[in-house]
């Protein structure tokens, strides 16, 4: 349980330091892919992060199984806003200083976290770009 809160703090703080006021994508497997990439590509990711995330090919493709709970914990801790109506993204509610405080509590340096946050965003942007060419969501009639 506490691990889930730590993961929420790590993701939100890294995102904030790297991407300022940009909203975090929260749905449709975008952040799932970004996290998968981070785990695969960032060698300096702590083992508790690696062990705390499980990925599976679900009925709607790749999903991080812990991510829904992580995002819930982030909301409950007031680190992020409620998702927007379509559950596409959420706003970060902590500023840089509180982000740095959370990272310090987790024993992670801000520069390291900033790198991870940039990587998360880059992958998320890439997914969204492809999405714009061929959307994954369908409007209800």
């Amino acid at each position, binding site marked *: 349980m506490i691990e889930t809160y730590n993961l929420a703090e790590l993701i939100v703080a890294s995102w904030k330091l790297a991407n300022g006021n940009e909203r975090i994508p929260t749905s449709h497997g975008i952040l799932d892919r970004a996290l998968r990439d981070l785990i695969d590509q960032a060698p300096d990711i702590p083992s508790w992060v690696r062990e705390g995330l499980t990925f599976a090919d679900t009925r709607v493709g*790749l999903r991080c199984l812990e991510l829904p709970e992580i995002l819930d914990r982030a909301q409950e801790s007031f*680190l992020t806003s409620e998702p927007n109506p379509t559950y596409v993204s959420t706003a970060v509610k*902590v500023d840089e*200083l*509180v982000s740095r405080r959370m990272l310090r509590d987790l024993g992670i340096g801000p520069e390291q976290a900033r790198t991870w946050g940039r990587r998360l965003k880059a992958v998320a942007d890439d997914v969204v770009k492809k999405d714009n060419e061929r959307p994954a969501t*369908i409007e209800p009639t």
Partner: protein
Amino acid sequence: MRREELSKTTSDCCPTIKLAAENLAKKWLSPVLQRLGAGDARGGFPKVFNDPVWGSIELLPWEVILLDSPLVQRLRGVRQLGLAHLVYPGAGYDRLEHARGVVEAADRMLQGLARNAKHRKSHGARPDTAIPEVSDDDYYVVRLAALLHDLGHGPFSHAIEPVIEQRFSKEFRDLGHLIRQFFHGVGAISVSEALVTLLVLSDSMDHVLNHPEYNFPKSKTDLAMRVIARIVGARSHLAASYLSGIVSGPVDADKLDYMARDSHHAGLPVGLDTQRLISKLEVISITPDNVPPRLAELRARAEADPRHRIYDMGISLTGIGAYEQMIVGRVVLYDRLYYHHKVRAADAMAQRLVQIAEDERGQRFTVEELFFDASDDTMVELLGGRLSCPEISGGKERARELASRIRERRLYHRALAFAARFVAGMDGFQDEETRDSERAALWRQVTKSLATFENIREFEKDIFEISREVAGVDEQLNKLVEKLQPEHIIVDLPTNKTRPGGNLLLTRTEDDEVGLPNLYFDPERWSNAYDQQKRCGYVFCPREYIPLISLASRVAIFRRYRFGITASADRFTKTVGKVEPAWLDWLAERGIIDVECHQQLREERVFLSRILADDIRLPTAWIAEKPELRKNLAEEIIISRPGGFVTPVKEEILKTIASFANFVQMINEGGEYAKLGGIPEARLQADARRHLRTQGLQISEGSEVGGGETDLLVANKIVIENKIAGETNDPMSENRPYPFQARRYSIALCKTVFFTLVAYKPRSETGLLPQSSSLAVRKVPDIPEDCLEIRFVVPYGTGRPSDVSKPVASC
């Protein structure tokens, strides 16, 4: 993969829960095996049951054999909604009723999907003749899985689940990984799903399912594995893969039944359009060409399939409204039913009953004991020790008292609500971003630290201890506290479980493009519901203790997390006026609460604010030497001390920083300490006291207010410690104990910010710090609270005045 292989592996990865499941299955299924062995199960006929939700439900003979076993009949005593019937009198139905309902819901979904598959083969813009039909084999397995899907629920349903989960968290986690290895497409596994997996996997169940007299009409090959696959929502072990989510999926028979049934029995209409929803379920054909890039894994699976197409259950675009209705209905049920404060109080009391019984009998309950086949009501009496039986021994007096409270519906009341929105003082922050950020900085400590039962128990213990400290405020409370027991205090902060999961279901366009439905919700409704219910913690206690526990809880929260609770929390819990303001004055006068606690709990409106760079006044020479100095100091204070400060404390801190900086600057310039080989602490203190007084600070000696011998106090709020570090080149890292922390003053001091003045003798010439390095802010090590030290250092014995050449401008 075969059952034997999975069974063996589970024995290795989760030995405790596996053994418990084997034992329970053996006990519950031995009568079935006897019946089968005696030939008593031969010639069975389908049975039809009346049902308030579905009208009538038919169970098939091989289902009835299991239905009529202790394995399934045990669910008759397990209430679906835990103790919700104590609040909603009609909501007392059991899991057996629900299990039968899920069979019917699954059957209707099976028929709906079979009908859709048939239509899709011959109608529409692009008929798909390759869609597999629903085979009898799959049909019967889905129904059987529906009947058995809830076997993993223990007494009081979800109330006890977290207890079991936290005790065996590693085993459950490992079992989840294992299940995902054996079954494709499985997501997160709940505790009850994990336990039912082990029950179905058991040797006893294998003996039943493969017994020659067990009349399952189709293939029995790997029957247990196929049933498990359906229960955990796997896409493997199926001919028609679009049936994979019927028992466990985003729209599944479980939700369709429990939502309709909960709503019906509780008398809470949620407007669930079950028939429409089922009729709008669709078979989705997935090919390499009709999925967007974001669903790359689906494309890869379609490509890997020999027919280059796979199938899943989805929803028609015209059914999304009904789907949204279901999600919104679920949120409503959570708000009004599952998270009703009285339901939470009752569930929390049941959880506590388990713990007290364990304390009193001196031993934890095993999984077998917790899954003892008794009804919830009997379980209350067993745990409470009022009833006993050879298989399970309960608690004694304390457990009995709590059990009788549950039985007689003398439920605990709310003494305090705590939530992010009830954090006091937030209006003081100048902008919304800072406000939100500081709120999060404070609130995250709460959510994180109360994430485990052990931590919650610790917090309850804190409140209990504090109750004894504060009871002296009132004669009546003083009498009452003598009867107070630890179990009279229950802290409850549930996590949100209303995750909508709106993006887990596929849909398709008329021309067969596959995607995810774009759902719309009323965000205000959602967020209100969220704020009102999900993020709210309660401290419960018996009614007579409300004033005492309300007061003690506030103090406990402040001591732990450094925030007060707004008056709106009292209105929310109907406890306005339970804590008298004069009580807080009494506590402050005796130093039981500190100055910040007094301010924040006493004032109707509190304003917190951050210390910003511009607020900090330092000598211009220091700033010239290090332009970032004030910014760095302000940031360090903000990072180290969440929530900012109440105005009077903030003002004293800022005045003290300015005066101390001036003092250090003056000593350095004047060279008064330069020639000293050593300096007595008394002299350092006397010099500092004299100087700070000349700067207009109200300075008193600690001994004057019944506390320390050598400390100075600023405005009777903030402590100044003096230290002689001796020879060192690194006086900022000098760590000594902070004795004032252990002292009890008879006034309300600030407990989380203090100043130290450290005199040091540089070990070498290079050890003399630049003036701008004479000040640092640091979090105090070895003190669990967010305690902040603002340290000034002043050199002595340098042989000459420091290198400051210019006079110091007044700061």
